């Protein structure tokens, strides 16, 4: 997979993950072009399109479009599966996820994606394992948080 984009029906980018090195300018250009192309498609149209020398696989969940770019020999259906799997993961993590969850916790959305895909390849096919890793990392984060907060608080109290 070359990259993954999440954007809203209004064309606002909500998440981007690039697995190929590109300049910011190029990324912006691609994003703009793809968002336009995908949004222009009618709802009853199929989820695949050929774009430059890539294949674009996208799917709409509520108000969010999930859009992946894959190479010529890649399997479109498994890419759809990856998108769906990611949505399921988000759903499990946030508890019936909505666009706002991703907007306000965008870093979490990235953490989940990074546990699921690495360098554009699926690294963990078990949902349970992905969620477990995220939970444990979060736990570690909270320990850190409480430590960092507790110390100044204590001083402040004195």
């Amino acid at each position: 997979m070359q990259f993954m984009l999440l954007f809203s029906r209004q064309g606002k980018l909500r998440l981007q993950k690039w697995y190929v090195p590109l300049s910011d300018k190029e990324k912006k250009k691609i994003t703009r072009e793809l968002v336009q192309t995908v949004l222009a498609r009618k709802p009853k149209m199929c989820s695949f399109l050929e774009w430059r020398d890539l294949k674009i696989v996208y799917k709409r969940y509520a108000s969010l479009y999930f859009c992946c770019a894959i190479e010529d020999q890649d399997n479109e259906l498994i890419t759809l599966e990856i998108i769906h799997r990611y949505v399921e993961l988000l759903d499990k993590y946030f508890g019936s996820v909505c666009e706002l969850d991703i907007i306000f916790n965008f870093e979490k959305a990235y953490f989940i994606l990074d546990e699921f895909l690495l360098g554009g390849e699926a690294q963990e096919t078990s949902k349970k394992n992905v969620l477990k890793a995220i939970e444990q990392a979060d736990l570690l984060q909270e320990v850190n948080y409480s430590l960092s907060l507790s110390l100044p608080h204590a001083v402040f109290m004195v």
Partner: protein
Amino acid sequence: MALKIVKGSIDRMFDKNLQDLVRGIRNHKEDEAKYISTCIDEIKQELKQDNIAVKANAVCKLTYLQMLGYDVSWAAFNIVEVMSSSKFTYKRIGYLAASQCFHEGTDVIMLTTNQIRKDLSSPNQYDTGVALTGLSCFVTPDLARDLANDIMTLMSHTKPYIRKKAVLIMYKVFLKYPESLRPAFPRLKEKLEDPDPGVQSAAVNVICELARRNPKNYLSLAPLFFKLMTSSTNNWVLIKIIKLFGALTPLEPRLGKKLIEPLTNLIHSTSAMSLLYECVNTVIAVLISLSSGMPNHSASIQLCVQKLRILIEDSDQNLKYLGLLAMSKILKTHPKSVQSHKDLILQCLDDKDESIRLRALDLLYGMVSKKNLMEIVKKLMLHVDKAEGTTYRDELQHTCNTKLCNCSTLILLRYISILVELTRLEGTRHGHLIASQMLDVAIRVKAIRAFAVAQMAMLLDNAHLLTGNMQRNGICEVLYAAAWICGEFSEHLEDPNQTLEAMLRPKVATLPGHIQAVYVQNAAKLFATVLRKHEGATDSQAAQETSQLLVERLPLFVQSANLEVQERASCILQLVKYIQKLQQKDVEVAEEVSALFAGELNPVAPKAQKKVPVPEGLDLDAWINEPPSESESEDEKPKAVFAKEETKHSRPRHTEVDEKELARRREARKQEQANNPFYIKSSPSSQKVYQDAPGVEHIPVVQIDLSVPLKVPGMPMSDQYLKLEEERRQKEKAEKKKKEKKKKREKHGKGKKHDSGPESEEDITPAHHVDIVTEEMPENALPSDDDDKDPNDPHKVYDIQGNLQDGSQVVVSVIFENKSDSFLKSMEFNVLDSLNSKLQRPEGAGPHDGLVVPFQLPPGVSNEARFIFSVQSIVMPQKLKGTLTFIVKSEDSSTHEKLDFKLHFTCTSYLITTPCYSDAYAKLLESGDLKSSSLRLEGVNMPFHHLLARICFHHHFSVVERIDSCASMYSRSIQGHHVCLLVKTADQTVSIDAKCDEPSLLGNVLDEIKQTFSQC
């Protein structure tokens, strides 16, 4: 210390966190940019603080802003600071920010190596995990080299969580630092049998990706993968393995045979569509690569086609689409199997999804045979009527146009009516194509001419119905064909009078010039037919009426702004007036008028000329005149001026060029052109390189007899160079001979001892090259070859040549090619004058006014315009910046755009290839007025004659004399400077001693020569 911490945390209470930022942005929809710029100021303040929590918060916010498209590269160092925090919370944010914002050009990346290494070996697996994840996004070749060993160690980590990440990231490392592949490969292979399924699947992933790039190295793993394929139940892994086999089979057909069985088993058993699809695709690929030697594969194909049928019949659009896509792959090798599902594919034409309809059309395109043609055409015609969506309709018409053309008369009749029907539809872009097909069919197939003419006459008669928006959609091109067919084959017309009338309607004047021209010409043909008809019926009244009609209508065309139309119209008008006079005297004129257009036009195959045998006794390569025996007649050896070398007279022999050699040269030239950035593929261009020319006779020599004087007298047409290679070579030979006859050459300037006419030579001006060096494209245009894909770069100036004229004028020919789909008009060419070089503008124009390009460009058309520059000093190269502005007219809008370019006037382009003979050359050098300079080129390993040919061609020199590996060369500038070279070669080293009466010109010419050889 404590106080500082307290202060930090108090500040923090007033800081915005990410949520506040997001909320803020959502609340400031009107002035988002302003709000964000204040936020960025705040973030800059926060980053200045020592508190890492504050910094991390700031970096987190920056990551969000980066996604919104703001530049945050200035904070790269702060990101590194947050990455190095010992706390996981911050480290995680730091690495996230880095993976989103860093790219290969980020210079702080090199500061991170040690930090990443530390994190990779952290006892906490999540620290390691975060570092690996981040690294996968921003790994650079340097990082890959420095960290390859650390990551390799991690592949054997005790925790599968780390192992699988390490295995996956190795792929990125291999890409960036290929040397790491060899040492890491044994371990990677080991991971294929890792007890953890996640690690195993990661290893399969990596090897599959590697094998896709270079399958050969992974053939040895086939047995192992075969085992995995039969044992694994994980569909993700299976898909990857099957894909891997797909990459391997073309190299090892036996593997393919072995694969068919397990793959067909999987196709039968699996319920996962993604796996089924992958299997079907791989089976198709395997069968294509086997193609022969597989007796029993029809069963497998049948199975695939059956399964695909199920996919296509599915209500899920995605499966339908993929099914059709895979079908089209089968079609290439097994068309019969696909044809039996024609019904299903025709059904898909009714699908509500345009992309599916396009796929189905694509398939039909390949399925048409004589038998099913009529049925498919009928179905397609129904669709043309109701088709919605422009791409689809264009595709549809394209299919009808190109594919359905078959050879039986009946079909052609149908074909013509299809073409005619197609023209009735608005919005097609294929006007050109339809027109050329109509012409093609009408010219080639006598039997259908009558039918075609009748149809075309109808079209002409109804032209006004279409004219509304015809101009825009390109359908008017069809009228070009219609007018020509009706004129040429007018004997088939039922009512030529009416058609004639239709062709002379005032509305015609709104058509593009080239079509009007055809109208006028063919009106004359029709006129001849009508006259004959009337005279045959002795109806002189009617004949005179027809003449009167022409006399009335033609003046409209005489006033046309288009030269061609004007010229033809006025010519024909006078003719008709004369005929009218004769008619009034009751003279029969029809025979004579018809004689004007007598003779049948026969189609000639493009290669026909080649098949004409050369008459016996004609030797195309033989001299027509006796070659002058120049060197022998010279009684005195020229003195060696550059070096004290013994000079011998030896004329390079003329080498016969055989067919093979020609082909080889042509190939080499194509290669050369392909690598030349100034070339647009397969466009005719003047830039030719004679790498393989065997001797000096292939050095381009000025062409005299072809020159067509333009407004500036004595200027040769630059498209001389556009002639075919052979043709050109023939002519050169002839010219060379002419030149050699004028043995006693005159030279300008200082060696003025000779007598023959300088004036005649003055006019010989070779086409010189002034190449565009850099083209600054519009912002959204891609450089070089990708141009043709980019619709935003409608224009490409691809070749500029300069013709030099009488010492101060340079004529630059610019070829404009419209590579876009839009119509370009109102082009204005402007150049920023320098003190030395000025674009000559018409009187009354200001010094910054642009020149109007005297033509418009329909899509795909190219044309050439010439611009005259006056140049004062020619001793320095010059670059002039210029701009072309133009209006892009597309179907529903027009925009004003511009294209920047640079004109490069090299010193070489001021030189004229001027032959010079040894005695004159020696005298010139002896005169002692010349300054000398020299140049050494190392590592030039081309044959000496190639080297000379190159200097001659690229730098407009001529060889005066050549002795073994030493040659003297001469050229003259447009202002009469002499440039003399002595070129010697030994052991890949070329030394050039040069003399010229203008040292800086010489220096620049030498620099340019050096440049030429550094490029090869």
